[in-house]
């Protein structure tokens, strides 16, 4: 096939609204556009003038799938600006809270958004008669993640308890013990998920990929650590703006991200597992083996395997944290509002999420900068498609189109998040 047009007007089974349009001429890509047409909401603009304590509440609403990550990042940035030190209990509870969202988000993506592609269905719902056990397992895992989020945060979508220094309400030790019993039972189900991923065959794709993730020598980094890359970057995450750049591309409402030398980069489960494999929990390493993938891998189709390993890790580390937390105690951490700036980066399920704020002495926001994981990945998705498509021009157009959709879905893109930082759109 020397000439082809791959066109998907409204990409399905991902969060948000985007279209793909590729023109192939003489076996080469003449034009490739991942057009994010999700309407912008300008969070970055209207955050200016709001009060600091509203930031976790408001920024959570950027994403219905990963509100926990927005809350954790906003709080870390504010706490840096006000020089607030959090207790060990808060640090552990926040990690548990973040892991709960990994369980929910990864179960959602593996089973409901990605698996139907590999098993030949339109949705997880239509898979239910042929794969009843898998679908029920998916619902159980997802509910468990949601219940753990709600236990700590009050509800699963846009939770309400996180605040500066900690939480407005704490789960009881008994409630944590009760959910630990369910986490124990979920561990073999998470392992089964890795086994399932191991049975799916994925296309080959090798490229000189740059991975970026948080990394910490003590633990699998999510809410803290250094910002590192597979090409030697190693910085304080608060300095992210000096090393990771963004520019506006005409065909998309999402900004394109690149490293200082102009290369695209990957964030998310595959980048994290590639860079932090040694810090995965013991069962997560076994799970990685079950997927049949050897890490580090430069094939984005191996993101599903990385996600499965992280699912197991999230369950196992949650169990460990619950044991360490015991009976959470009320803490009285005060803080002083002051003028200044603070930035922070955390690992959302889809990759690094960065927030940066400046406040006046009343705590009113003067400047806000937020970059979502999918904004980081859009450039990498386009670059990957430019490599992937020419290698598969022997496929019928319909199949190639599906393969492109699968390629994009590997990234678990969340276009709802990605556009809310776009500056105002120009006319015409």
């Amino acid at each position: 096939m020397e000439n082809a047009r791959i066109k998907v007007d409204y990409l399905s089974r991902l969060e948000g609204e985007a279209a793909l349009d590729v023109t192939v001429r003489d076996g080469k890509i003449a034009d490739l556009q991942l057009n994010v047409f999700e309407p912008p909401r300008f969070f970055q603009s209207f955050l200016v003038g709001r009060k600091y304590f509203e930031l976790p509440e408001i920024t959570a609403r950027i994403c219905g799938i990963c509100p926990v990550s927005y809350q954790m990042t906003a709080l870390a940035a504010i706490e840096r600006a006000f020089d607030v030190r959090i207790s060990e209990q808060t640090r552990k509870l926040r990690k548990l809270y973040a892991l709960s969202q990994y369980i929910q988000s990864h179960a959602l993506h593996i089973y409901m958004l990605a698996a139907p592609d590999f098993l030949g269905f339109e949705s997880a719902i239509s898979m239910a008669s042929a794969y009843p056990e898998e679908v029920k397992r998916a619902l159980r895992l997802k509910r468990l993640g949601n219940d753990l989020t709600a236990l700590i945060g009050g509800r699963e979508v846009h939770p309400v308890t996180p605040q500066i220094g900690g939480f407005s309400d704490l789960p009881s030790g008994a409630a944590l013990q009760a959910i630990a019993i369910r986490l124990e039972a979920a561990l073999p189900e998470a392992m089964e998920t890795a086994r399932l991923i191991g049975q799916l065959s994925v296309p080959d794709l090798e490229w000189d990929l740059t991975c970026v993730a948080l990394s910490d020598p003590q633990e699998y980094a999510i809410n803290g650590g250094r910002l590192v890359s597979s090409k030697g970057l190693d910085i304080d995450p608060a300095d992210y703006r000096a090393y990771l750049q963004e520019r506006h591309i005409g065909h998309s409402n999402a900004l394109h991200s690149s490293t200082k030398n102009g290369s695209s980069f990957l964030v998310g489960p595959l980048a994290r597992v590639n860079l932090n494999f040694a810090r995965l929990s013991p069962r997560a390493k076994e799970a990685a083996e079950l997927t049949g993938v050897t890490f580090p891998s430069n094939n984005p189709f191996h993101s599903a395997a990385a996600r499965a390993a992280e699912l197991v890790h999230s369950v196992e580390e949650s169990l460990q944290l619950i044991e360490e937390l015991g009976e959470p105690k009320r803490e009285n951490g005060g803080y002083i509002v002051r003028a200044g700036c603070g930035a922070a980066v955390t690992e959302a399920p889809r990759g690094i999420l960065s927030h940066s704020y400046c406040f006046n002495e009343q705590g009113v926001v003067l400047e806000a900068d937020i970059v979502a994981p999918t904004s980081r990945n859009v450039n990498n998705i386009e670059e990957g498609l430019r490599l992937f498509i020419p290698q598969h021009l022997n496929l019928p157009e319909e199949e190639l189109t599906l393969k492109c959709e699968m390629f994009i879905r590997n990234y678990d893109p969340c276009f709802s998040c990605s556009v809310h930082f776009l500056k105002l759109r120009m006319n015409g």
Partner: protein
Amino acid sequence: MSGKPKVAIYKFASCSGCQLEFLNLEPVLLELLGLVDLAYFVMARSGNQPGPYDIGFVEGSIVNADDVGRLKEARQDCNLLVAIGACAVHGGLQSISNWLPMREVEARVYPEPVHTQPVKSFPVSEYVKIDAALSGCPINKNELVEFVKSAMLGVTPRIRPHSVCVECKLAENVCLVVSEGKACLGPVIRAGCGALCPGRSTPCTGCHGPAGECNVESLKNMFLGLGLHQADVTRHFRKYAGLDAEFQKGVVA
């Protein structure tokens, strides 16, 4: 309705959290899907089917002309059209932008002054007739299930008009305004959340929008009495539902 009712879920300017609440109905999801045909749900399926549909759920606010067109088509395609969530019902958080002077926003973003499209956020009822509204940021799952059941049975769903205070009293929570002097919006906000925030020592910030017959002016004066500045009070009322006529009484000094 004959056979399984066909359901469509539309997305406009939003975070996808309300449509995620459908998938978050895990314990009853398979049963629910035995009763309705989720014919159009782009986030959860490919092979989406064309209308007409029996029920359309609309998530998100309307921020541009293209979306007005898509919304009008949705109205034509659906027998019942239901706005879900603060964005669709009240304009949502992004309606905070409606009061920002656009020139100032531009200057904040662009080094050179350029001509930009006005960006304002409106509820879907600004452009089309809606048959029902489920408010909340996000919608409450119990209310969603109750609504779907009612629609299947052909009865009017019990949408709560009373305020969060009623649910808060039923839960026997300590009142945050009276005993702690905190600015809680509970008295003027529609119930349906089970007083989620006050029950966790967090003041209500109003994500469910105005309750029926609420008295914003009185609460505004109470907040000023607690020592809040008018700018703080304005921020409270220009949040999820700043376009609401009653809420606009909270922002005038």
